[in-house]
């Protein structure tokens, strides 16, 4: 057993830290307050190779691993604890990785290099207004006509809707749609590279709208409708009606990276807490860390974060074994529980840390002078459901550990 990161992973972490200190940390409050990641920062992140880390070099990726992507996302979130910049980065790491795995060669060459350079966005469009957790119940419909698909439907709570409109090259999504009767459930879902704006031109049939979010405001969230949206068959991802399985693979990677983002933000909160409880002096000048009511709680929370970190990097390590090294000792199903565990644990640990940190701050935390709320509300996004509801994670764990037949309702 080896709990050490490799020398390259350590050096990569340091290089990301240096980048973040130079370009992200000085601007994170402005990004959160202004509700926008500057496009030049996205471009700079592309130049620095912070997108498509686990994607092959031939498509503009870094030829790295999911562990390396997790390291980058954790560090970005540490330096922007609202996690907006980390979320932008994690979407453009996780989904291009799955896209590369199943898309046609010329489509990969068309899309991926632009995403790598930060000129285009590539995210996920799965959730619909009737509920995000019931993927098998989606209603967006794609009907094949000749060599094209005609897509109709609505997707909501989708990240990057504004960025696609603003980035010079645009971008699109890993979209899942029904390609047959709705009642066939998950066995009738196909995945597509839904290109909405490309080479600077918005495609017909796409009507986006934006939501005003309470946190991680730097990255946009919105909805869109597709009305008779035409997409060439070459943009289909993998086989018809296998989209659900590709989507689950994508969620496996994305959830690891989401856990890494919340850990990065949690680490920032822990560092703020250490600084505060050491230096805040009350009752005859004692640091508040000298009260066991504070220090014991701190130790518990530190342990929670460390546990989440271990779960996350263990899942990333296993994902590398399965997806990158293709180690036949492991099956894809082996990832279900480790991924669900880290996605369940990391946002919950970080949420608890913020809640306690803000109590230690006292009234100061309830003002905008104190930035802790930005991290708290930002990571809250992953407690209320983004990238898989917390209770869905519990279902996955219970189903695999207790047994599918014992947890059926």
């Amino acid at each position, binding site marked *: 057993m080896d709990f050490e990161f490799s*020398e*390259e992973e350590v*050096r*990569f972490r340091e*290089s990301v830290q*240096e*980048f973040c200190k*130079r370009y992200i940390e000085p601007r994170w409050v402005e990004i959160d307050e202004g509700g926008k990641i500057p496009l030049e920062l996205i471009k700079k992140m592309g130049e*620095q*190779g912070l997108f498509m*880390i686990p994607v092959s*070099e031939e498509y503009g990726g*870094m*030829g*790295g691993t999911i562990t*390396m992507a997790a390291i*980058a996302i954790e560090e970005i979130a540490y330096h922007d604890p609202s996690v907006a910049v980390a979320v932008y980065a994690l979407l453009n790491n996780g989904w291009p990785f799955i896209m590369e795995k199943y898309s046609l060669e010329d489509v990969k060459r068309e899309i991926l290099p632009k995403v790598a350079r930060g000129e285009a966005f590539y995210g996920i469009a799965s959730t619909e207004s009737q509920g995000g957790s019931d993927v098998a119940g989606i209603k967006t419909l794609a009907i094949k006509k000749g060599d094209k698909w005609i897509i109709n439907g609505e997707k909501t709570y989708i990240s990057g809707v504004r960025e696609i409109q603003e980035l010079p090259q645009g971008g699109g999504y890993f979209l899942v749609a029904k390609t047959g009767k709705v009642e066939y459930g998950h066995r009738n879902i196909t995945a597509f590279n839904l290109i909405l704006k490309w080479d600077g031109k918005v495609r017909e049939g796409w009507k986006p709208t934006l939501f005003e979010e309470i946190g991680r405001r730097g990255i946009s969230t919105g909805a869109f409708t597709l009305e008779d949206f035409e997409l060439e068959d070459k943009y289909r991802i993998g086989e018809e009606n296998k989209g659900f399985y590709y989507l689950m693979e994508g969620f496996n990677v994305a959830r690891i990276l989401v856990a890494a983002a919340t850990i990065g933000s949690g680490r920032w909160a822990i560092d703020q807490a250490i600084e505060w409880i050491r230096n805040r002096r009350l009752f005859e000048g004692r640091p508040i860390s000298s009260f066991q009511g504070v220090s014991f709680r701190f130790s518990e929370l530190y342990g929670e974060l460390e546990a989440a970190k271990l779960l996350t990097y263990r899942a990333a390590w296993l994902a590398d074994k399965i997806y990158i090294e293709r180690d036949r000792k492991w099956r894809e199903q082996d990832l279900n529980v480790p991924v669900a565990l880290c996605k369940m644990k990391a946002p919950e640990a970080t949420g608890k840390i913020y809640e306690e940190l803000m109590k230690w701050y006292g009234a100061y935390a309830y003002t905008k002078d104190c930035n802790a709320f930005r991290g708290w509300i930002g990571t809250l996004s992953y407690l209320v459901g983004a990238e898989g509801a917390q209770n869905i994670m519990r279902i996955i764990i219970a189903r695999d550990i207790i047994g599918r037949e014992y947890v059926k309702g």
Partner: protein
Amino acid sequence: MKILTLIKLTLDISQLKYESTGEPLTEIAPKKMGDSDKCAVEEAVRLKEKLGAYTVVATIGSTSENERIIRDAYAMGIDEGYIVKVEDPEILQATSIGKIVSSLVEKTGPYDLIILGAGSLDTHSYTLGSIIASKLNIPIIAGVDSLQYVDGFFEALCIMEDGAYTFRAKAPLVVTVTTEANEPRIPTLKTILRSKKMEVKTLTIHDLGVDDVVKVDLLDVKRYVVNRRKILWDASEDLEKAVDKFIEVLVSEGVAQ
């Protein structure tokens, strides 16, 4: 054009922790390539990109961390690297380092430019560049804030207390750069992974024909402490009077005359 860049493994002062007695915990402090050395590497790589120069990096030391900073330089774009194996390099006298470097230049050179940080993060002696130039009998431009190669000359801007000076010199020469010279590039994952595959060559001082080296007797290392006087003057009513009092204290403390 062939360029030699010298880099030093130093304590990361920003992460240095201290005992409650004030003793620095140097054993557990992280180490890194010195800040101005990193600017020297950046300058060499920029000359490589502009002029097609071949770039070599060298460091003195004996640990895996020395290899690591060579790989950091590779990840920034350097072509070839050497470690000269010496135990406890941090207490080598600058004259001995000069002797090692001049022998290295003879063995792996000739070089058109030898470039290094103006001063190291730990000892701050600012002497090494001059010692190397003197041993090789070539010119030096020290404390350079901006370096260009124009019409066959190296042109260096040095910002000093009394003004900005431009110096020009032909190769071969030694240049020491400050941290103002540039903003060093940050290695990408791709270049980090590539650097892992590159060879790091090692030499002993005997390979360089150097028989012995002189080390500094390190007597003590202490935290630099600035004791704050915490004196406040109320200037809300009479500014002049407050300034007079302030000056009075500066004079009595020997800070001003």
